[in-house]
């Protein structure tokens, strides 16, 4: 493994009036450039917290995160972040949202925005407002907004979790297209096993309370992956077993 993105001994404790909650402990992960890693785990295992730490949105942590040898200590455009909700600016049109703080009057920006609109297949919607878009379209705009900044890595926090099953499948295909086309490194948090197996080159399984890496699985299936093939199902079973093997009874119930 290369040391493109390196998560070293990361731990995190939330302190509240009710006491301390240990959400992450001894998390170590090395990520190579161009990889597509899915982080999977039950809710409450700290996977979103881990992603926020990599983004630099949460810096009050133990351990450290390095991107190309540089310490992550604040948010940056080099680490694009896709939230679970699209979080578009409702007062800006699609193209203005993608440009965000950049000016569309700049011919170079305008040209790149147009290219990205083609990439995420939103031609004809340049001047639409977010209220006129479906959930899937909005999330594609959010992805284009991140890609305009040429991020070294794209961090995705259950980005398709709120979408219906058809749209989700479609968005997964779209994301793989973008990954192949732009060779952007992807770190993708999900709680959907199918999604993880369909997308990732590696799957990191987290266990909850405190969040720890329970296992890392390599997915050697060729793209595009067939969800119905025996090998896909086999891997799916493997992830499920890794997730469940030494679960306590109550935690199984809570899923």
């Amino acid at each position: 493994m290369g040391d493109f993105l390196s998560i070293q001994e990361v731990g995190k404790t939330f302190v509240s009036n009710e006491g301390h909650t240990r959400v992450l402990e001894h998390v170590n992960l090395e990520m190579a450039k161009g990889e597509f890693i899915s982080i999977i785990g039950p809710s409450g295992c700290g996977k979103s917290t881990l992603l926020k730490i990599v983004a630099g949105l949460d810096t009050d942590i133990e351990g450290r995160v390095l991107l190309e040898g540089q310490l992550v200590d604040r948010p940056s455009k080099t680490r694009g972040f896709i939230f679970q909700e699209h979080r578009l600016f409702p007062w800006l049109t699609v193209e203005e949202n993608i440009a965000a703080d950049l000016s569309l009057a700049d011919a170079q920006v305008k040209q790149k925005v147009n290219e990205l609109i083609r990439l995420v297949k939103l031609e004809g919607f340049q001047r639409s407002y977010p209220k006129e878009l479906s959930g899937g379209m909005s999330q594609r705009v959010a992805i284009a907004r991140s890609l305009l900044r040429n991020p070294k890595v794209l961090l995705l926090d259950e980005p398709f979790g709120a979408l219906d099953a058809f749209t989700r499948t479609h968005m997964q295909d779209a994301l793989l297209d973008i990954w192949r086309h732009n060779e952007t490194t992807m770190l993708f948090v999900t709680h959907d096993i199918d999604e993880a197996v369909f997308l990732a080159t590696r799957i990191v399984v987290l266990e909850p309370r405190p969040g720890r890496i329970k296992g890392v699985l390599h997915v050697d299936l060729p793209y595009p992956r067939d969800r119905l093939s025996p090998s896909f199902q086999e891997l799916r079973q493997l992830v499920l077993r890794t997730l469940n093997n030494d679960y306590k009874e109550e935690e199984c119930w809570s899923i």
Partner: protein
Amino acid sequence: MSVKVETTSISKVSTNLETKKILLTTRIWKGSLLPVGILVLWQGFSMLGLADPALFPAPSSIVAELYRLLLSGELIDNLEISMARALGGFLLGGAAGLALGLFVGMHQRAEEYIDPTVQMLRTIPLLAITPLFILWFGFGELSKVLLIAMGAFFPLYVNSFLGVRNVDAKLFDVAKVLEFSQSKLIRKLLLPAAMPNILLGLRLSLSISWMVLVVAELMGADRGVGYLIQDARSFMRTEVVFIGILLFAAVGKISDSLVRLLEARLLKWQDSFKG
């Protein structure tokens, strides 16, 4: 194929526009029924000699007087000076309220130091301060404009402050990840997000400016619509009193409509319930 789709959508839009037009005319018609009816009754009573012309002059004589005032230029002159006062005071107070409201909204420290004082001043009735303003600034234009400015200040302060505090915190995370500069943060996130509240404050400030204008002009002025009313009252020219009142109503309504027009333009992105 795509051409066909476009033409159907265009024709749909145009029929939509036509039905909207028809709806609008019927709405105007329905809305004017009551005031027009009252006017007709009023005129009838006057012609039958049932209304005292010194208290309720006939609508026809009010219109005749209006025509005379327009011809002599008296009306325009007085309206001009009134509008200048209201606008000057509104711009002064409104701009200050907007700026301070945004500033205090953005900085919690500023809120702790400034907001309690402003909230205290806000509760003082303007009429109670009027004598003080006259003592300090005399009967001239300055005291009038400052009084109006003070009235216009608070609605814009309160509403722009609220607007900033209502901005979705999740969008600030986006601005952080995209590394917005401070000026972009204000221009692309804070101002547009606070705009619904700011425009509401603008409307309230405008209407208060008009109200305070009347107060200031009735207290003592030698020109302006308020003066016109006061002067007409002492000479029992009731027609002119009515004209003055109508003038205030008309200008107030027009300025309010202008802000609503601005609202429709600036807030077309909003996805809210429209009844």
